[in-house]
């Protein structure tokens, strides 16, 4: 049996109230008020497509052995780097080793579904399991419909033959150059065409065409479909498509527009994770991805679908939220306003690539050292063991520490230093089993940090070098449960 073996999800904690967006913008466009229901997920300043991909990937790895992953595909239309393979950064942050196939798949809202079809059709030719991570940090114009309806998020899938939770039954793709929106080479934001035309000439024609081809090929009755995933920022369109296809209304998977917003190329996979959480053994799942045509994929949930649950999953990611009313901060985080940073923010942030490469195990993998002589764990790994009673030279083996729980020893909330979201929280963290490090904290809610508080580690943006279009990443501590 071959199919989906694992999944994981990540939704940024911050959820911006749509009323706050409408309050700031309805002076210009009163129609936004009609969309001002619920909230949308918003990346923190230190999150992007790569960091969310790492989070979703970690969640997925709670069900997979990292050493079994032979390929990593990263699907997104908002990759931070146009030329530097983003999936390699993700793979190294996940400590997947150096012997795997990596690939970025982009340029369409169906990037993730197309990548998934390629992985499924490749079958067992990938060594062990293959992993797909779909991640999107969506940017949109201030006061736009897109700003109201979109959100940020990521999801991951494991594909293979061990521990299949959803068996692959087949796929189809209908291809047509239907340009509902686009983003050209030199643009940072999308340009969209009329919603009604996209619905009538796009979704309602393209999806049924691809879906009916697949149903026929797979010999499956449409009425059997228990979960129909179609990502769209048009709230009523998935149900309209389902109706046209003959899929029951109950099978239409909620797009969660009211709770997270539509996370672009990641959204079909994120919705699939919610469907997998709801699926019962034997359920038929149809996944559709729309963009210059339609991808459709068919799965049947296996007996293991209920038992194999990731650590966080879609429901957990959805629940882990921090309500936010601050639209100005959202604009600032998304570079939609020119923010005063203060002179401390002007410090040159050149990235010294040779030094970065030397330090990549620490910076990307959070790999410390464990002394062979005395067992002392230390990070960063250095030449001499830090234990004064040992002091052995070159005695430390690599010791990945990103998954270790830690506790705060000392901390502060610094309002003097530059930070995109002051105050800057940082402090000394001690890890379970040993090792300690002075490090940044992120996602700290006021009053949630003190000596002794448990923390977990998260891969985040450390610094932007806007002068040269680079960004640096490192690990930060977050109070557990936040």
């Amino acid at each position: 049996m071959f199919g989906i073996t694992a999944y994981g999800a990540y939704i940024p904690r911050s959820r911006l109230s749509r009323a706050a967006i409408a309050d700031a913008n309805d002076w210009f466009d009163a129609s936004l008020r009609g969309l001002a229901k619920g909230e949308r997920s918003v990346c923190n300043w230190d999150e992007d497509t790569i960091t969310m991909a790492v989070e979703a990937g970690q969640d997925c790895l709670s069900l997979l052995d990292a050493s079994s992953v032979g390929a990593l595909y990263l699907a997104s239309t908002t990759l931070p780097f146009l030329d530097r393979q983003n999936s390699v950064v993700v793979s190294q942050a996940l400590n997947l080793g150096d012997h795997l196939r990596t690939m970025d798949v982009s340029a369409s809202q169906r990037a993730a579904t197309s990548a998934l079809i390629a992985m499924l059709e490749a079958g067992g030719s990938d060594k062990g399991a293959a992993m797909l991570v779909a991640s999107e940090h969506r940017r949109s114009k201030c006061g736009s419909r897109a700003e109201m309806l979109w959100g940020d998020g990521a999801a991951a899938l494991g594909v293979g033959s061990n521990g299949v939770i959803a068996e692959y039954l087949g796929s189809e793709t209908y291809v047509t150059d239907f340009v509902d929106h686009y983003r050209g080479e030199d643009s940072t934001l999308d340009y969209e065409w009329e919603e009604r035309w996209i619905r009538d000439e796009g979704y309602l024609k393209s999806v049924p065409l691809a879906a009916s081809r697949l149903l026929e090929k797979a010999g499956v009755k449409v009425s059997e479909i228990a979960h129909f995933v179609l990502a769209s920022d048009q709230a009523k369109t998935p149900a309209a498509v389902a109706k046209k296809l003959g899929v029951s209304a109950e099978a239409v998977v909620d797009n969660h527009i009211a709770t997270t917003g539509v996370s672009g190329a990641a959204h079909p996979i994120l919705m699939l994770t919610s469907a997998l959480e709801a699926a019962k053994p034997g359920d038929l799942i149809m996944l559709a991805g729309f963009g210059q045509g339609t991808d459709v994929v068919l799965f049947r949930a296996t007996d293991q679908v209920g038992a194999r649950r990731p650590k966080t999953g879609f429901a957990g990611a959805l629940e882990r939220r921090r309500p936010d009313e601050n639209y100005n901060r959202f604009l600032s985080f998304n570079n939609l306003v020119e923010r005063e940073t203060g002179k401390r923010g002007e410090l040159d942030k050149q990235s010294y690539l040779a030094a970065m490469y030397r330090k990549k195990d620490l910076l990307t993998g959070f790999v410390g050292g464990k002394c062979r002589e005395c067992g002392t764990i230390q990070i960063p790994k250095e030449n001499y063991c830090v234990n004064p009673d040992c002091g052995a030279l070159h005695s430390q083996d690599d010791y990945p520490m990103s998954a270790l729980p830690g506790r705060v020893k000392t901390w502060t909330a610094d309002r003097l230093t530059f930070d995109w979201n002051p105050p800057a929280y940082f402090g000394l963290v001690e890890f379970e089993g040993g090792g300690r490090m002075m490090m940044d904290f992120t996602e700290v809610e006021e009053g949630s940090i003190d000596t002794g508080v448990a923390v977990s580690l998260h891969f985040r943006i450390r610094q932007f070098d806007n002068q040269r279009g680079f960004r640096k990443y490192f690990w930060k501590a977050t109070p557990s449960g936040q």
Partner: protein
Amino acid sequence: MASGIKDKVVVLGMGCSKFGERWDASPADLMVEAFEECLADAGIEKKDIEMGWFGAGIDAYNVGSSALPLSLALRLSNIPVTKVENMCATGTEAFRGAVYAVASGACDIALALGVEKLKDVGYGGLPQRTRGVENDMFWPNLSAPGSFAQLASGYRAKHGLDKTELKRAMAHVSVKSHANGAKNPKAHLRREITEEQAINAPYIAEPIGLYDCCGVSDGSACAIVTTPEIARRLGKTDLVSVKALQLAVSNGDEASFSDWDGSYLKTTRIAAQRAYNEAGIKKPREEISMTEVHDCFSITELVTMEDLQLSDEGQAVRDVLNGDFDAGGRIPCQIDGGLKCFGHPIGASGLRMIYENYLQFQGRAGDRQLPNARLALNHNLGGFPHQNICSISIIGRYE
């Protein structure tokens, strides 16, 4: 067996510029101001100086690297000059170089001068600067208050104090230093403050508020040192000698290994014990007349009282609130205003402390003169609580 530095070298003269926001003074102007006072005090000529040690902390915003800025500013006669930099211990390090040169017999008369020009950067606080190519990739953007604020979190957790109790003691530290600084004409900050002002000031880095932070100042201080014999030959009486010079530098233990809980400065404890041994001090609480400690932040001064063995562990809050370190207290601390109010031009601070010792021992401290000051301990701490450089100098009357 090394015999230590005690009483081998004396201060021949000292000088100190006015500290503060010296908008119209260049680093060279500050150096000359301190040096001219020092030279006149020593009663020698510039050409008598045989070697120099020059301390400046933050090159990029200051005078540039190397010993050239000192030699150029003072037009020294091509003598050997060495530039030293060891964070906030820089001034004491310059002094140590000059003292060791004299003690070794390499020269008879040596100069130590520290300077810092911090107010050219365009904003308050210390300049934001690189920590080095590799460190910048993973260190937090910790500011000085942000790093030392953690001492408060560690101390509070260890001794089970509530926030308001510790904050009140921190406020007392600052109120005392402002009262002392008000009496010092060379001090940067000369206004007295109340405990309420200190407690209610906005946070800079929790729980450090505005009045828990020392002044960031421009300034220079300098010393000319020689042997007791030469000083006497030059007609000096009332000699002031070096009793101990010690330095302890972190090796990663606090930051990466030990069970250090962030409530104290490990290096201060080590340097203090070494200094007491070198100076032959058995009972510091009875023997030391005054201290100038590195009160970059009020919490640093507070925990340093324990690290120097001047308070029992966990009792600094009580002792501070009891006024033990006030001007009229058991062991006055920062009688010149300290870093808090005299100001903290990094490269000059260690020498500024010795300058105050020297004035006190010679009865030249004006309104802030202490009765019977005989032995002083000076303490500098460069870096962060979790990895730092601690220098301690003990200076006293030469008897």
